[in-house]
């Protein structure tokens, strides 16, 4: 069996967040070098703060300042920091209960090695030099054996509060289309459309999925379809899509290749957009080195009769 294709897939997006009153105060506080928690109905102080009391479900808004010193409640050593983590040298992930708080905050502890870290150790917050109102305004924590940090007496009211943040997200995958689609993609490189036939319903899937979704059976019998096909339905696209270098208007069509059990999607060219019609007979137009046909163009054959493609819309 030929080798199955694989390629990296990176999913990356800068999400925005509206903070609401409590997170707004917390992050604005960090910008101003103040750590704020909230007071719950039963008198505990939660850091980082939440908007709703975990016990009573009541809205909580009473902000309380806590110290920038605290105690490690548990930890894990990170020997190989990854991109965008708080430190680029090995460090400990720690939960720190800041002095004055009843809950612990997750952050990084700058320590020379795991032997230098223990539960119960005293630590101090290290502020980032550039602060914008984000959790990264805390650069990290560091070991500390001095007095408890002093409070500034801040009320949590700020001029120019931070109300939103951008939270970039990135996921790195290795993607494989699997056996059936690998065979399809390899055949496309030879400008051939090769699908697979279901052993039960006999329908040909192009692209093949390795199984028939209707019958639930694995497929393996390869069948070449096309190259001619029929436009079964379409729309005329009048707005330019991002990342697509196609002049508008253009026609986006469902095309049933001859012998295929369902339509695939493609662009129609070689004909004015307003003359494209259901039933138009088309063939693929390839460009050098492309993985897919650039578009489909009329073959000049008479239009297909509606009844021949009405199940393939």
């Amino acid at each position, binding site marked *: 069996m030929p080798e199955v294709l694989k390629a990296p*897939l990176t*999913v990356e997006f800068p999400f925005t967040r509206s903070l609401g009153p409590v997170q707004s105060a917390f992050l604005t506080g960090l910008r101003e070098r103040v750590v704020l928690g909230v007071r719950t109905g039963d008198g505990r102080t939660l850091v980082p703060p939440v908007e709703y009391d975990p016990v009573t479900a009541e809205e909580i808004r009473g902000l309380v300042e806590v110290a920038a010193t605290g105690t490690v409640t548990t930890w894990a050593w990170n020997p190989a920091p990854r991109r965008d983590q708080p430190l680029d040298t090995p460090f400990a992930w720690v939960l720190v209960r800041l002095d004055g708080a009843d809950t612990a905050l997750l952050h990084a502890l700058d320590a020379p090695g795991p032997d230098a870290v223990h539960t119960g150790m005293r630590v101090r917050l290290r502020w980032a030099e550039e602060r914008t109102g984000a959790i990264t305004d805390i650069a990290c924590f560091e070991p500390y054996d001095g007095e408890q940090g002093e409070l500034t007496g801040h009320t949590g009211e700020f001029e120019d509060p931070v109300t939103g943040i951008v939270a970039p997200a990135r996921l790195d995958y290795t993607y494989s289309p699997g056996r059936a689609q690998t065979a399809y993609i390899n055949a496309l490189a030879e400008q051939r459309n090769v699908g697979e036939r279901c052993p039960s319903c006999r329908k040909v899937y192009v692209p093949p999925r390795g199984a028939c979704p209707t019958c639930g059976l694995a497929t393996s019998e390869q069948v070449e379809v096309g190259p001619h096909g029929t436009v079964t339905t379409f729309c005329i*696209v009048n707005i330019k899509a991002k990342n697509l270098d196609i002049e508008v208007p253009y026609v*986006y069509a469902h095309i049933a290749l001859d012998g295929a059990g369902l339509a695939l999607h493609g662009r129609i060219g070689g004909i004015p957009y307003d003359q494209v019609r259901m039933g138009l007979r088309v063939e693929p137009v390839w460009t050098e080195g492309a993985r897919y046909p650039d578009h489909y163009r009329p073959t000049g054959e008479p239009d297909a009769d509606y009844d021949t493609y009405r199940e393939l819309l």
Partner: protein
Amino acid sequence: MSKEPVAVVGIGQTKHVAARRDVSIAGLVREAARRALDDAELGWADIDAVVIGKAPDFFEGVMMPELYLADALGAVGKPMLRVHTAGSVGGSTALVAANLVAARVHGTVLTLAFEKQSESNAMWGLSLPIPFQQPLLAGAGGFFAPHVRAYMRRSGAPDTIGSLVAYKDRRNALKNPYAHLHEHDITLEKVQASPMLWDPIRYSETCPSSDGACAMILTDRAGAARAPRPPAWMLGGAMRSEPTLFAGKDAVSPQAGKDCAADVYRQAGIADPRRDIDAVEMYVPFSWYEPMWLENLGFAAEGEGWKLTESGVTELDGDLPVNMSGGVLSTNPIGASGMIRFAEAALQVRGQAGEHQVDGARKALGHAYGGGSQFFSMWLVGAEPPDA
């Protein structure tokens, strides 16, 4: 042993808008949940379980947001679960919650669905650049527009039907204080003059992108007896699914939709939906889906749905009002959109729909679909409890 009858005793939603920058996601869901509790005159302690739904996590990029929303929804120490069925999720979520009551697992359940589209990028979330695959050549409307053309070909409907639906739904939205779009100067001419985006779909025939949440309190007979306002009773509910693309798929009138409706009607004893149902709130993100779903749901014969729209039957004062709230065309926080449909059906039979109330509505259908016409969820609610 028969099922426990399920009653809707509380409904709450946010004022749907393009961007709620003043609240976090927690603050948004809280607002809808609090309004539903107030409607039912209940407190957090009266709720036994929470069932929540939203569109895929990629939309806002918060993985499993239900975990952090437990505090905001009073779910600490209670069962909380999340339902995933793409755009139909608001409906499916309500049905999962209803089934917990019907099975007597819980007495009173809070169910809620939301989307904060302003913090999201739905188009990006749905079309990741998968290696080796041909990029999709059009946006969401481009995906659905060929199906609309197929419907027009099959039914012979005049080109104007889509604009009639949009004009109606936007006018209905003017009567609904929670609707996102309030186009006070809307005219049919304006709809018909709006730009053609994905021919045959015009700009004014597409849904907006909204921030919003919708919540309902579902309860058993005992809970309904204590309710301060008339409940809506669930008379039938069902879900069905099928692949987005498969050989033999009827994208114009999917089999899963027909089967789902037939199941609901069987449960509710509906022999003739056109005659027996007083109002319908269905998921119409592009205007042409109104006549398409009218056929799929059995309100008209195949190819005849557009005639109901054209003759005014689906207007608010028509014989079979459709999308009294203004519909998805006027409000679309994707994850919540299905539940808003279900909630509107319940509001109607409770007589609580305000200016968009259908006089004498006794039975109403709520409908949702999602994915590429892949998931369907529906419920039928009535002013009277089901027969014992």
